[in-house]
């Protein structure tokens, strides 16, 4: 090692794109098998359907980068979707509904952050606990019934379009750009890499990992609130159990995207591609009307295959 090694540029974007190959493969295969797959309406469909999962997967990427996990996202999403319904129903305004949902989401995020960073409770356990709480509150708030009769302004969020592009897609793109900017262009984003990679480096740099970690979980909660509005808009109702289990889809999308579970090795674009891969897989299988049991097994297979490639990549 007499001479220092020549400069090797390993900017995250040029990471070996396992998920990109899987995605293109799925698109090619489905396009061949189901002609209607590549129609503009279907592509718009896939993008619109993937937005909800994207809003959950983006913050989940940050949480996983800090070697943490947020299992409460699905339940908080369910609770906030009911809150959007109830508040917009009583006040007649979508904005107030959104505000209430994001506030409640952020409160749950802060609670998760405090449990994980303040009380050192393992993230899996802390968020499993808050999952139960949010799920219970959702049932109690809705008394087990769907909340209907929501003002048109709420459903507009899902149905309207901006310059002929469906609003959810615009929301999804804006959210991605916001998180991309946050992660790669702000101090806070830089410190998220450190939270996963080397937490002492932050203390030596005079920063407080606890505050940063609580902020990461708070963002995750707020996004669950935001996604609550989208889900209520889509269903034109708040439903007591509609969003349960979506956190596992988000974790799968992040894993398929190539973000590894240790040392702060996050890749936001990978997550977005992972979300699309899950969306395309489900959409393709629907179009082909394959038996539902095959659809169920294929999602599991996609997750295992992606992790297998991630293992290959990181081990080599």
């Amino acid at each position, binding site marked *: 090692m007499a001479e220092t090694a020549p400069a090797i540029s*390993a900017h995250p974007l040029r990471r070996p794109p396992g998920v990109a190959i899987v995605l293109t493969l799925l698109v090619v295969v489905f396009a061949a098998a189901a002609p209607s797959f590549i129609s503009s309406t279907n592509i718009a469909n896939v993008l619109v359907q993937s937005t909800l999962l994207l809003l959950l997967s983006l913050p989940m990427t940050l949480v996983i980068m800090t070697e943490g996990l947020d299992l409460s996202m699905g339940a908080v999403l369910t609770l906030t979707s009911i809150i959007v319904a109830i508040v917009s129903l009583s006040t007649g305004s979508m904005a107030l509904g959104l505000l209430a949902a994001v506030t409640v989401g952020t409160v749950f995020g802060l609670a998760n952050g405090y449990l994980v960073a303040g009380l050192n409770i393992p993230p899996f356990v802390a968020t499993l606990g808050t999952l139960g709480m949010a799920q219970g509150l959702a049932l109690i708030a809705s008394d087990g019934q769907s909340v209907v009769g929501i003002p048109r302004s709420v459903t507009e969020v899902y149905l309207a379009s901006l310059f002929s592009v469906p609003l959810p897609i615009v929301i999804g793109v804006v959210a991605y750009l916001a998180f991309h*900017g946050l992660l790669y262009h702000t101090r806070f984003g830089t410190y998220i890499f450190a939270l996963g990679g080397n937490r002492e480096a932050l203390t030596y740099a005079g920063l407080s990992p606890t505050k940063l970690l609580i902020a990461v979980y708070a963002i995750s909660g707020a996004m669950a609130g935001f996604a609550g509005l989208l889900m209520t808009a889509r269903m034109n109702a708040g439903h007591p159990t509609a969003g349960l289990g979506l956190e596992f889809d988000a974790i799968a999308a992040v894993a398929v995207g190539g973000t590894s579970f240790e040392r702060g090795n996050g890749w936001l674009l990978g997550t977005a591609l992972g979300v699309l891969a899950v969306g395309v897989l489900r959409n393709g299988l629907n179009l082909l009307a394959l038996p539902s049991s095959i659809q169920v097994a294929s999602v599991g297979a996609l997750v295992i295959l992606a992790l297998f490639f991630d293992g290959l990549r990181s081990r080599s």
Partner: protein
Amino acid sequence: MSAALRIDATPSRDSPTPLLELRGICKSFPGVKALNEVSFAVWPGEVHMLLGENGAGKSSLMKVLCGAYNADAGEFIHHGTKVAIASSADAKRLGIAVIFQEFSLVPYLDIAQNIFLGREPNGRIPGTIDRRKLYRDARRVLDDIGFDIDPTVTVAKLGVAQQQMVEIAKAVSQNARILVMDEPTAALSDRESELLFRLIRRLKADGVAIVYISHRIAEVFALGDRISVLRDGRRVGEVDPARTTPDQLVRMMVGRSVDISYPRNFAATSGKTVLEVVGLSTSTGIADIDLVVREGEIVGLCGLVGSGRTEVARAIFGADLASAGKIIFDGHEKSGGPDEATRLGLALIPENRKSEGLALMRSVGDNLVLAALHKLFPSGLFEPRRARRVSDDLIAKLRIVTPSARQTVAFLSGGNQQKVVIGKWLAAGARLFIFDEPTRGIDVGAKAEIFALIDQLVAGGAAALLISSEQAEICHVCDRAYVMREGRIAGELARAELTEENIVRLGMHHG
């Protein structure tokens, strides 16, 4: 905040008030008193050498200085006024920057982001980073210390030496008035060390006070303006390099004359070959390793940090897969993993005890029988009483200081923990012991006991392969030694040729 270094303070060797003075600093951890009434001062434009054996308290003093640890007692005086250093932020405000040995780098950030972690230049929008300025400043700091590398490279992709250079760049870029370095040349080649020395001389000229921690006497005379020697957490003296000799320093470091350090009776005739390695190469960076270890022998394996000694140990033990070559143990070739090696009678006492040698949360007894479970209980049924007897015997035999075998290992001191790791392999009836830096971070008293133990083992017919970066230890204890350089064996030194100079000559990089 340009990274160019301002030259204003005129260096004056004997300006009355020191830049920073530490008085009566104490710090203790469960089981050991790391710092005991240490007083220490630094003057601007001066390199103050901090010398001491492993475990003397050097790193603890440094961590107190930079706010990573809070001192239990003692005062800090900066420019004559009393101050407190309770956190890294306090240290930063006082202009203290640190180059750590276990790096404070974030693997998946790039070099520029690591250098300016926490001090990123602000972008137009509040909270964002001005990336162009970030990379421009980073290039300037890297050029300033003569380290030619693209600042956009992710740190995880760098070698040990390159990461050390990034640590140095990070400290220098803080325009610190006090720069603390913890064994900075451990992982560096000659060329990089020379770059560092030139940088230190220039910083000295700029009035920066430098605290240089090392246990290498050669470096002390090349750079030191003032030398403090630490032993067992106490400052045993401050000397002027001009008026001292290496022997005097060593005696201060070791606390007794050099010659009586480690009793060793060398076997007259060497026993039969236990281990023979032929042309061993692995993907972890070592190639064509040939070595032999015979019964009754302690064979040394030396060389600089990063020269591949640990990799050889792990390859022999089966922890890393060999890509070429043969490992013959007791006459037949082995190719399996650690489980096969343990059954055959190999033992590995790993470099970092806490993370690789012990299950810290479990008891001393559980750890002692861990490697011997199959030997002691072939039926698969574990008898706690018998296990207890075996571990009690070992505790007595090795004189491990612990209230009982039930005590959690985490509570033992470094020396006792190392004895537990060795005891673990004694219980397994190992015949070839591979020691990887067995005495690192252990105080001098326990070090002698451990070498006495190794000597006893070898006298009893076992064989030992000793990896150590303490050339003195290798020379005193080993029958012969191999010296490694850049993943290959540079040469073998017989007992007669085994001197520190020869090791250094073979081990150092050329050109």
